């Protein structure tokens, strides 16, 4: 015999979705039906395979450990790069402000041609400063020097 019209009930039996009476009845049937008994063994084998715990590979644990260790570092060491960037941004703002002030101070002191040349040099230096901290410092220094010169020159 390789067919039984109650084989369809095996899965409900395994999943525990049968009511008490149905379960008792099917248990009695199983005792006498080799088809359903075999199907029960198959479903139980599938059940075990599905319920077997999955082990994550050891490498995953190691990779996660490294990644989390980086995240767990003290805030100061992780913020090193952003802090440099904030210094650069502050320097850029101060440079532009200094440039604007010096232009105001030098207006009317230097001849018109010299004023235009100085403005061109400062503009070129500050526009390239985003990629080069040294250039930014040079622009800031030049601006400061311009302000100092302007303050030493007699007013009109």
């Amino acid at each position: 015999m390789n067919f039984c019209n109650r084989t369809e009930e095996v899965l409900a039996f395994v999943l525990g979705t049968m009511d008490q009476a149905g379960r008792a009845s099917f248990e009695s049937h199983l005792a006498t039906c080799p088809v359903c008994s075999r199907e029960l063994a198959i479903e139980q084998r599938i059940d075990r395979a599905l319920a077997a715990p999955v082990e994550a590979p050891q490498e995953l644990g190691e990779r996660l450990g490294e990644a989390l260790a980086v995240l767990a570092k003290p805030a100061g060491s992780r913020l090193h790069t952003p802090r440099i960037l904030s210094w650069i941004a502050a320097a850029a703002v101060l440079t532009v402000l200094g440039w604007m002030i010096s232009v105001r101070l030098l207006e009317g002191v230097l001849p018109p041609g010299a004023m235009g040349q100085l403005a061109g040099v400062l503009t070129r230096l500050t526009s390239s400063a985003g990629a080069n901290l040294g250039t930014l410092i040079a622009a800031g220094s030049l601006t400061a020097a311009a302000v100092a010169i302007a303050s030493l020159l007699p007013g009109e």
Partner: protein
Amino acid sequence: MGAFTDLVRSHSGLVYGIARRMVRDAHLAEDISQEVFLKAWLGIGLLRESASFTSWLASIANRASLDFLRRSRPEDPVGEEADEIPARPAEVPDQGSKLVEEALSLLGERDRLLLTLFYYKDLRASEVAGVTGIPEGSVRVYVHRARRRLRSLLEGREDELLQSN
């Protein structure tokens, strides 16, 4: 940090298991698992106290896996139908488990997720429902259907399955 490391240790099997069964590739599953735990680390403050960490993590793992699948084949809808990505299943302990994993990989995404979550010991039906979007009262019905489909995929392999005990 130590507490989170403990959570990673105790949940890595679940996250890796979801990712592996969803994307059907052991190496990609590792990458996704790492992404999931980093997201969890960054977002743990958003977890409501009443919510289960396990189901929250399972949701992140599911979303990350689905995102990966959608990026891989954006034209295909996510549904019941099996898809065509060649599987690279991970090592499994015995031939019977290998057969079941192979059959599982041929099921649709929702069935794969549902069976993975349903058989994870620490998840309640309500949590499985929350992650899968299936009504709580229907979880067992859906599991029953998924198991039927799984069983049909094992048709003709029964002897191999039984001999692997």
